[in-house]
């Protein structure tokens, strides 16, 4: 007994390591590993929680066969991929612009840095759902500020932003780009500040123009930050839920419904856990590829 207490008071590296890591791995097992196992398991069952019909019926690959021919599923997948392909490069370009502006020598001119820094942090800290609500108000057909500005510039008819499929999709993408570009800018700004000034000075001596300096020095030196920011943004873009949910609820019809929204609807609203799980597994596979890319990157950095 005394030996045991002694060991607990001054444990070996290995025992201590196990003890310290145990809570983290216990939680991960409970909230990540077990649910994923359960998810895959459920995807082979006809499992509905609605109407008291609780008994699960094994259906093998039937759900998967259904998914393959499910128009709604492919429609939502198409929307999700489109949102990713539009908003990730969009946020990169806007974020890079913001980072370049924020990297100007404010301090040397006696200007405070905090308003600029706070302006980059605020969109990041704002809940996605709030960004969706606020921009839905911007894009309001009757009283939105966007249509008012358009009217002042001579637009005759107000655009029904959130009520027409194409416009709604555009409004959602604009909102996502605004919301995510400032996080991008923060990451890129940190990268910009790491580039040694001497590189630019040397280029100046060699007579390189600003434009050349940007493409020959800034972009290549920034590449590691860009790649990390891009991969991470892609992973979150594939999960897009909050902004379309608060702006259009996936409408009009299901024009702006994403994969996450379809899965949420199927499971939480219709309580069709079996089929919802199958769609979730498919989404899981989609994002796994991107995740693997990201982890490979982290591994290289370490």
């Amino acid at each position, binding site marked *: 007994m005394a030996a045991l207490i002694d060991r607990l008071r001054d444990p070996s590296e290995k025992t201590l390591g196990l003890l*310290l890591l145990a809570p*983290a791995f216990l939680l991960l097992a409970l909230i990540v590993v077990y649910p994923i196992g359960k998810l895959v398991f459920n995807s082979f069952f006809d499992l509905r929680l609605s109407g008291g019909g609780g008994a699960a019926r094994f259906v093998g690959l039937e759900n998967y066969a259904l998914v393959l021919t499910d128009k709604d599923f492919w429609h939502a997948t198409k929307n999700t991929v489109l949102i990713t392909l539009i908003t990730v490069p969009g946020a990169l370009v806007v974020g890079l612009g913001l980072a370049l502006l924020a990297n100007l020598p404010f301090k040397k001119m006696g200007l405070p840095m905090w308003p600029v820094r706070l302006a980059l942090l605020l969109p990041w800290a704002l*809940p*996605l759902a709030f960004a969706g609500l606020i921009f839905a*108000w911007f894009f309001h057909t*009757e009283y939105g*500020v966007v249509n008012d500005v358009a009217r002042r510039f001579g637009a005759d008819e107000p655009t029904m932003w959130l009520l027409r499929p194409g416009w709604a999709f555009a409004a959602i993408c604009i909102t996502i780009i605004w919301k995510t570009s400032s996080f991008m800018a923060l990451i890129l700004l940190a990268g910009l500040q790491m580039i040694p000034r001497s590189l630019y000075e040397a280029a100046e001596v060699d007579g390189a123009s600003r434009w050349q300096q940007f493409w020959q020095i800034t972009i290549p030196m920034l590449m590691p930050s860009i790649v990390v920011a891009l991969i991470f943004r892609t992973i979150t873009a594939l999960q897009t839920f909050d902004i379309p949910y608060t702006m259009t609820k996936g409408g009009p019809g299901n024009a702006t419904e994403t994969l996450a929204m379809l899965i949420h609807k199927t499971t939480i609203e219709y309580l069709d856990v079996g089929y919802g799980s199958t769609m979730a597994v498919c989404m899981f596979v989609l994002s796994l590829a991107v*995740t693997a890319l990201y982890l490979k990157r982290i591994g290289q950095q*370490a």
Partner: protein
Amino acid sequence: MKTRLLVLLAAGIVVANGFFPAAWILLTSLKTEAELVSKPITYWPANATLGNYVQAFTDQPLLRYLGNSAVVAAVSTVVSLVVAALAAYAIARLNLRRRQLILTCIVASSMFPLVTLLVPIFETMRTLGLLNTYTALVLPYTVLNLPVCTLVLVGFFQSIPKDLENAAMIDGCTRLGALVRVVVPLAAPGVFTAGILAFVNAWDEFLLALSLNASASMRTLPVGITLYQGEFTFPWPIISAALIVAIVPIAVLIALFQERVVGGLTQGGLKG
């Protein structure tokens, strides 16, 4: 002089981009319903009123939402910090094999799409009767924040000289004693940074809060405000007031600690 003007212009663009939605919502929250539906729309409120703020608190249990958000975010942040600090110490300090693999495993968990975890978590919480409880959100939020907290804290632990700890152990401290008396106080800034990131993450989360705690009294702020129902239409002035109430705490937090937040975000925090 010309450069100064250009730099000022650049600052103006960045500031305007960051603040215009919040500014517009603030203006909207001060307008009366009648002014809001007048055309053409006004930019500056004609008869500024605080009535919308009163109504935001009386029409719906906004105070309750605020409390729910605070409890869930605070508790999950504290638990996450404790668990992450223990794990980060082991990874940064102990002579373990495969520490990189361990860190990768913890980080990888945050890369899984939340909605795929949602389905089984929802089912489990439903079976356990935990839907519409704080536990239903605190548990997943804690895990959600583990990767960020662990990454930030590993960095901080690694920056503390190992000699300090060794000196404490020579002076008779046990290993755990050295951890509590030497390492934790020195890592306090790191713990604080990780804490802010975790708190903001939990405060902002929407999908789980919407799915697991949808009953009126258990909603967090994002869910409560999104599901706010007016009698006939979506009551924009009141919504705007509620949004301002919900944004202010988090804005003050990041304004006070902006340098730490930026440091934490760019070092290890990786959130969209």
